[in-house]
């Protein structure tokens, strides 16, 4: 990749790293929420559902701002994380990962829910009559059968995380090597005189990554469907 500058390679590597952390962070919560929203009836379910979807409808800047309030050095959660675990989020790539995780969370949950809704509850009942307790059933029947949705959700969220701009720049700023991901680098290039060529290259990388993600997701989905015999 000699036609990419060191800065651009850095942005690419950082984007992948941030997206990877983001997916890793949100995956367990997304599975849990997808399950709760699909399989549980409780008061406030609609509100929770709306809350999960909030990042889809709010301006990303608002999400970034809310994250600053909550997870900033003096925010209730951010302060506690730093005191208790020494985790710093503000101006760090972990912070960027958090911002992208929140933004791509609804996409992930949505993909998993569609998949989970297609899992025949009769199979869980069957497992139950065979002696499987709740956790056992989830781990051995529900989760494997919703795997296509989990994978699709993870890949979609990964692709979306690579491109998240507004929430990231608001929450963790635009620091080269730490929070300057591909879209931020692209934005910076456009702001820099003579950065047109760099902007074009970064845009091209983004397109290739996005397309690759979609194709990969489709390929995975097919493999899994084949595995499940559908």
């Amino acid at each position, binding site marked *: 990749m000699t036609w990419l500058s060191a800065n651009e390679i850095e942005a690419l590597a950082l984007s992948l790293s941030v997206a990877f952390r983001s997916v890793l962070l949100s995956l367990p919560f997304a599975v849990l929420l997808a399950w709760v929203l699909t399989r549980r009836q409780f008061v406030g379910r609609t509100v929770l559902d709306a809350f999960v979807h909030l990042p889809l409808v709010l301006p990303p800047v608002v999400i970034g701002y809310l994250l600053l309030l909550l997870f900033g050095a003096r925010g209730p959660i951010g302060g506690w994380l730093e005191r208790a675990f020494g985790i710093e989020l503000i101006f760090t790539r972990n912070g960027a990962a958090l911002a992208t995780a929140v933004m791509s969370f609804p996409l992930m949950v949505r993909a998993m829910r569609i998949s989970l809704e297609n899992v025949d509850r009769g199979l869980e*009942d069957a497992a139950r009559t*065979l002696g499987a307790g709740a956790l056992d059933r989830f781990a051995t029947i529900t989760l494997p059968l919703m795997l296509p949705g989990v994978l699709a959700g993870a890949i979609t969220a990964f692709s979306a995380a690579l491109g998240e701009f507004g929430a990231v720049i608001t929450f963790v700023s635009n620091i080269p090597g730490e929070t300057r991901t591909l879209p931020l680098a692209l934005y910076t290039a456009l702001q820099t005189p003579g950065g047109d060529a760099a902007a074009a290259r970064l845009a091209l990388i983004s397109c290739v990554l996005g397309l690759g993600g979609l194709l990969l997701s489709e390929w995975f989905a097919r493999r899994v469907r084949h595995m*499940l015999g559908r």
Partner: protein
Amino acid sequence: MLKVAAKKHRGAFALEAQFELPTPGVVALFGRSGCGKSTLINVIAGLLKADSGHVVLDDAVLLDTQQHIDVPPERRRIGYVFQDAKLFPHLSVAANLRYAQRRARVPAYVGMDLVSDLLDLGALMHRRTHQLSGGERQRVAIGRALLSQPGLLLLDEPLASLDASRREELLPYLETLRDQLAIPMVYVSHHFDDVLRLATHLVLMESGKTTAQGNLSDMSLNPGVRAIIGADAVGAIVEGTVLGADPDSGLLRVQVGHGELKVHFGKAANGAKLRVQLLARDLIVATRAPQQLSVRNSLTGVVTAVMSDDDDSDLIAIDIGGTIIIARVTKAATRELGLAAGLSVWALVKTVSLRPHPI
């Protein structure tokens, strides 16, 4: 003994069920589609909550709403064979079976080899579940339920999704299970043929209620059962004892009541029990001893009741020595022969119209 009582109201539907089954035995929950049979076995399995009721299997109280006992389904040790098998699609046949085996909560008394033998699963073991035919799927589902080492087996219309030839293919396996394993079974069906071949007891369900119950012979005479199975299938199911082969004809002689029937049936040991269905439409009633007829079977008896069945015909109940059979005759015949309770009659039936089954 399996004792079940359950009440459940859900919208306009009300379940009010109560039955008992001596164990081991096979009880058929019989009734029209939508009469609550599946709801009732889901309550027995614990998958549905009853408003009130109890489920007691021998000494084990699995449900008693008064004592606030409600053992969760995963600890009830009740095997459940679903109408559409519910095999786990992400596991092979062998893995489906092992899934049950590994989760059994008591020492194994039904082993993988036995199940594989009884249900002919050997050749299917490494297949994926979507590669199985409907009948094969049900065999695997039955095997899987057995490997969970159940104290009771529930079968929810396991043959319903199969065509006639597949049903015939699967029924012998179910008969083998009944004969070789002493596991009590509750068999849900709206097919009287299955019931006839498998069940020892019958519980009749009508719009959510259990309206009658008893052993199969008694229940074969029940008006509610007759109404469901249709005029042509009405008939007594009698239990008989094999007396031996008839040397001239090669037919099997079977004692029923104080009379004797000759039936087509392969080999059976003397003293073995057979169940024979005598369809009402196939019986001929005579008031004098019949002579020089091709009919092989003539049973003497006493009319116990004349029941009007429809505008044209009556059902005549005849006691042939502690066993009741029923014949359908036209009302004109009832009048001409003067059929009435107390009259001695001969009941004639052709051997070719008898359908014997082992018990």
